[in-house]
């Protein structure tokens, strides 16, 4: 009977997980990300390369409005040096104001500024992209079923449409996209960016790097979350052992042959 009950607990949890995994497109490619698992961490160099890809390729259409430039230098992220972060921020024109005369003005960005968006608003972004709003990338990895695997798969999933599938102007075929139709063209091609660290910029490499960067952007707390989690669970396990032993001792006072 006890086993039966246990079985049900397991069944219950499995049911919960399965209901949340109902799929309707082909499964994304499984990548062995360094940030998966209990002690997963981001690959620092990959994050820095990923920022480069984002900045040079994605950022012309996709905003990242919830990130600040200072985040790029914080622990657990790309960890650019303070000077690098200042230089990155200064490369952007930020609209500020109003000044004492009531005028808006532009100035070079500071680390405390939010990432500058490519378009003034969602409608402008959609209008410039054939009616499809390029989604903000701050939490994109968390906002898609399949997370990092899905984003990576879409980036490398462009194909010629199978026979019988006709595509409208400005629509592309992608194996992993829901519905297989995507308005974003295949922007990655081998050698598109020149990595400072000499890594060869293949499509696969760039897709992995930028996905790593986006995963960090969506969960900048991931490393400290994992580290704290291990400590918390170790503490709880030790405490429960102590409490268990105390419980045994206390209950031994009660007549054992009930």
């Amino acid at each position, binding site marked *: 009977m006890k086993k039966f009950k246990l079985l049900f607990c397991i069944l219950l949890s499995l049911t919960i997980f399965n209901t949340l995994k109902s799929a309707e497109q082909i499964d994304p490619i499984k990548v062995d990300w360094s940030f998966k698992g209990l002690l997963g961490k981001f690959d620092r160099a990959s994050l820095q390369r990923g920022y480069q890809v984002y900045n040079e390729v994605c950022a012309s259409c996709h905003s990242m409005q919830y990130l600040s430039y200072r985040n790029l230098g914080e622990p657990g992220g790309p960890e650019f040096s303070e000077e690098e972060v200042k230089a990155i921020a200064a490369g952007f024109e930020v609209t500020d104001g109003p000044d004492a005369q009531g005028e808006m003005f532009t100035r070079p960005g500071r680390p405390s500024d939010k990432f500058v968006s490519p378009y003034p608003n969602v409608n402008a972004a959609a209008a410039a992209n054939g009616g499809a709003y390029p989604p903000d990338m701050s939490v994109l990895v968390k906002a898609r079923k399949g997370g990092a695997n899905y984003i990576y798969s879409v980036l490398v999933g462009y194909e010629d449409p199978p026979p019988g599938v006709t595509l409208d102007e400005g629509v592309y075929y992608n194996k992993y996209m829901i519905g297989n139709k995507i308005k974003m063209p295949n922007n990655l091609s081998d050698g598109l960016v020149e990595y400072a660290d000499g890594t060869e910029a293949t499509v696969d490499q760039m897709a992995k790097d930028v996905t790593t960067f986006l995963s960090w952007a969506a969960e900048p707390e991931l490393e400290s979350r994992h580290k704290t989690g291990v400590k918390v669970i170790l503490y*709880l396990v030790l405490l429960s052992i102590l409490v268990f032993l105390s419980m045994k001792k206390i209950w031994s006072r009660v007549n054992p042959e009930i």
Partner: protein
Amino acid sequence: MSEQEYVPKSKAGKWFNDRLPLLSLASHLTDYPTPKNLNYWWTFGGILTFCLLTQIITGIVLAMHYVAHADLAFASVEHIMRDVNYGWLIRYIHSNGASMFFLAVYIHIFRSLFYGSYKSPREIIWILGLMIYLLMMAAAFMGYVLPWGQMSFWGATVITNLFSAIPLIGDSITTWLWGAYSVDNPTLTRFFSLHYLIPFLILGLVVLHIWALHVPGNNNPVGIDIKKPSKDTVPFHPYITIKDAFALLLFMIIFAGFVFFAPNVLGHSDNYIQANPMVTPAHIVPEWYLLPFYAILRSVPDKLGGVILMFGAIFILFVLPWLDTSKVRSAVFRPIYRQFFWILVIDVLVLGYVGAMPAEGIYLVLARVGTIYYFLHFIVILPVVGYLEKTEPVPLSISDPVLSGSADYSMAKKDNEKI
């Protein structure tokens, strides 16, 4: 519950206690005689209290940083996640805490169903518990709306639209609930206000729930009344407190596992997309703990019928103590009911599963069969089994369940030994 009148030792204590008997209350709570054969399924009351307090404390902190406005809510949640010190931790505890709360409450409810804890003389405890459960669902639903993601918005739209099924006045009620002509900023602000209020109503009901419990005392795995308090019971402190603490720690390990290593696995990814009234998600699904009711709702082709059945599925539980005709409380001694209990568990799990699936084909068939069975269980099976079932011999007392030949004596004993 026979206990001696408590008299504080110190003079000041006595002076205070004569005016406000808080010390008597504390003494009652620590000495409260508890059946000594309670198993680990009885630890979920304490776990639920922990869950409620965790939600209240993390919720108060979150409310300090959250902005209840349709244009700002989503961004304020990201602000909490990124800029508030340990904001991610507080928010993940709160969001996963809701799931853990429901996990615990479902175990607590099914424990009551198995051991007949809802039966005389504990009907009021049961009804208060159901009121808490109803308020929990309301609080959880409104809380899920607050981040103002896609599932927040569309979940709110679906649920509030249910009220439009009421004949004649339905549409007016829905507009009144929204405070607008669709789910919009006024809906968000009132949901935030109510979401902050409800936990304190729950806290009040929890006090009544425990008060009502302390009148007849705890039920127990063998489901019989306490015969000899000195032999059958132990004082609540330290025996039950330490056992509850141990169970709570195990529960917290699972809780921490979700918070630190899979904080979003129980949520829907669409809720990280800001609410957009112009784009409907492919599937609108509620959080997992509401799925069985969602399945019942969608199993009926008629909207009003679906709403009635969905609420009926909860309200039928209110009359459960009078639907169950068996004189024996614990399923340990009810061989037939025991089978039906597990079938009900499976039925609810199946309903939860199909609730997450599109309402078509085999899923719709399963939902209908599951719904019919759910009501059948309470309306037909329970009363009939109570009359016809030949129950097994019940022990004479908790401390001496000596009835040779009883097949389940070994089990009752095992339950005791587990302590």
